[in-house]
């Protein structure tokens, strides 16, 4: 009852200056809504990183032909990664479970009847499914016989199914790739976005032999995918591969690698870097607006203390203790900021969803930003409300009543 009356009186006091109360809340509203967006974006980005690492394969290492710094798109013009290189990796490095050499050609036109679509063609060994942990969901993968016969058979991804077949059953149908007919043997389940940010489902997998001798006429690989037995082996195996290939390609300092070794760590780091730059900016906005909100709160509460001197004196005269006055003003501050926090959430959640919709950024809503927002707004109200509340409580009743 008593508490309820005090709360009601505080609300009355806040309601008296609606504009001012709103101004106080504004900073917190902006801060908290920004925070909600940041956290949900960070969570979304994090999940995306995890997904990319998973798509890449946590125990996978990719050895790409061609040097450079960035995450490579496969470069078909580089012809340095040889069959013997792959063989050496498989036989000389301890901890390599399997390897899968691949020839990759992006943006190859594929046709089915009158429909056409640009696909990424991958010529791969039969171990491809195990190498990628990615198994056909319909039909079957090409077998050893197809491989040794250099058969014109293909396994296609979901985007290809959608674009060329519009959902019709593609198994047994013939598609035209690089002016040759390929029979569709199997369909891969959807995988999503690759580590490099490309669509993994627009791929067409054909036997490596067919790709090298019949379709593209090349003798070198674009990429060798290596699987190691345990996650803990990845770094060691990766550096051993690098040393081995440098030696095999006769590269000595200061010459740069003519290949790239990509590990799950690099994938994770790359994705996080992109996410964290943006997040740092937004986080700065959040902190700044919370501080600004806090300072506005402090000043307006100080003003309020001056304006309500008589009320404070009266409360003291009627028996209110210093602590009672302190708590009342603190309560008002905290009410304002947590109100701002709630409004910030109400504003931030749809913005976070909208950002997720309008941009490629994934956002993920969860309880953490809600708890963080409310916790932070309570803290802001408490910290910046303390000085005005203490000033109110410290007023001498006689001075205050005068």
């Amino acid at each position, binding site marked *: *009852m*008593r508490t309820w*009356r*005090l709360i*009601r*009186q505080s609300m*009355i*006091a806040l*309601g*008296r200056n609606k504009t001012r109360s709103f101004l106080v809340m504004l900073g917190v509203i902006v801060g908290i809504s920004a925070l909600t967006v940041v956290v949900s974006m960070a969570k979304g980005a994090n999940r995306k990183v995890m997904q990319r690492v998973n798509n890449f394969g946590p125990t996978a290492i990719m050895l790409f032909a061609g040097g450079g710094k960035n995450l490579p798109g496969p470069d078909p013009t580089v012809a340095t990664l040889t069959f013997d290189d792959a063989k050496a990796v498989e036989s000389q490095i301890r901890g390599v479970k399997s390897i899968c050499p691949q020839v990759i050609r992006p943006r190859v036109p594929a046709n089915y009847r009158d429909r056409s679509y640009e696909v990424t063609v991958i010529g791969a060994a039969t171990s491809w499914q195990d190498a990628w942990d990615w198994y056909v969901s319909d039909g079957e993968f090409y077998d050893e016989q197809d491989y040794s016969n250099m058969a014109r058979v293909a396994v296609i991804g979901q985007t290809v199914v959608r674009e060329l077949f519009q959902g019709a059953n593609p198994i047994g149908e013939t598609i035209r790739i690089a002016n040759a007919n390929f029979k569709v043997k199997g369909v891969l389940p959807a995988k999503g976005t690759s580590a490099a940010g490309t669509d993994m489902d627009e791929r067409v997998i054909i036997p490596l032999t067919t790709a090298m001798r019949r379709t593209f006429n090349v003798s070198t690989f674009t990429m060798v995918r290596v699987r190691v037995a345990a996650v803990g082996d990845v770094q060691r195996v990766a550096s051993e591969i690098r040393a081995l290939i440098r030696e095999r390609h006769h590269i000595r300092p200061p010459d740069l690698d003519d290949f790239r070794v990509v590990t799950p760590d690099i994938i994770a780091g790359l994705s996080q870097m992109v996410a964290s730059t943006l997040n740092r900016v937004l986080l700065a906005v959040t902190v700044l607006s919370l501080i600004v909100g806090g300072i506005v709160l402090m000043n307006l509460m100080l003003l309020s203390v001056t304006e309500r001197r*008589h*009320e404070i*004196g*009266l*409360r*003291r*005269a*009627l*028996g*209110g*203790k*210093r*602590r*009672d006055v302190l708590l009342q003003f603190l309560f008002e501050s905290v009410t304002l900021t947590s109100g701002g926090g709630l409004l910030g959430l109400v504003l931030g959640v749809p913005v976070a969803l909208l950002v997720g919709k309008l941009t490629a950024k994934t956002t993920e809503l969860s309880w953490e930003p809600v708890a963080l927002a409310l916790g932070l707004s309570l803290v802001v109200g408490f910290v910046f409300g303390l000085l005005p509340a203490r000033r109110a409580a410290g007023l*001498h*009743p*006689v001075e205050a*009543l005068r």
Partner: protein
Amino acid sequence: MLEMIDITKTYRIGTVETPVLRGVSFRVERGEFVAIMGASGTGKTTLMNILGCLDVPTSGRYLLDGADVFHNNDDTISSIRNQKIGFVFQQFHLLDRASALDNVLLPLIYADRYPGDANMRGVASLQAVGLGGRVDYRPAQLSGGQQQRVAIARALVTNPALILADEPTGNLDRRSGLEVISILQRLNGEGRTVVLITHDQNLAEHADRILVLRDGRIFEDSKLEFPLNAEQELVALAGGAQ
């Protein structure tokens, strides 16, 4: 009931000391209606602040209803104010956004225990000052006299030992002022101790004892055989108007 023993108060600004009270001693018995008079600058306000336990004397003792007030910390003095003193201020000091009842209940919020029958007590207090029908009115919806009566109801709600009225009619017209004084007289008739602080001789003559303060000391302490009766004055005022 209350006793002041050699109370002094000296204000110090820098090195300049200004004595305001120079040793004030007096007793007020239970059920008395005492007016403390003095021109401005005589220490009247300072004395009233000490009587109301709002300010601390430089020296001297103050016994109120058995408590040695200034031998306590601020929290306990606050509790003493809450339990033993009902204030009536010249400027009413009502919370303007709160109803009459909420204003009256304000002291109970700061009581050690919020009484379960608070609302009933608040309404009873308002009825005692003739505002039983104005429970939900805001101060702005009430006349000055009515506002001061709400303040009296607020002073009554804790059932205090002492009602301390500081120029309670200072902001009121004569008629409203007489109404307020008549309420104080009636409360006194019911056995309550009332101390009225004023500079107004006529107002002071409604009390049954007048203390005159001059130069920081009690200059005169006199009992009135026949105090003025505000009730009768109101009747006369109404008669004069007809």
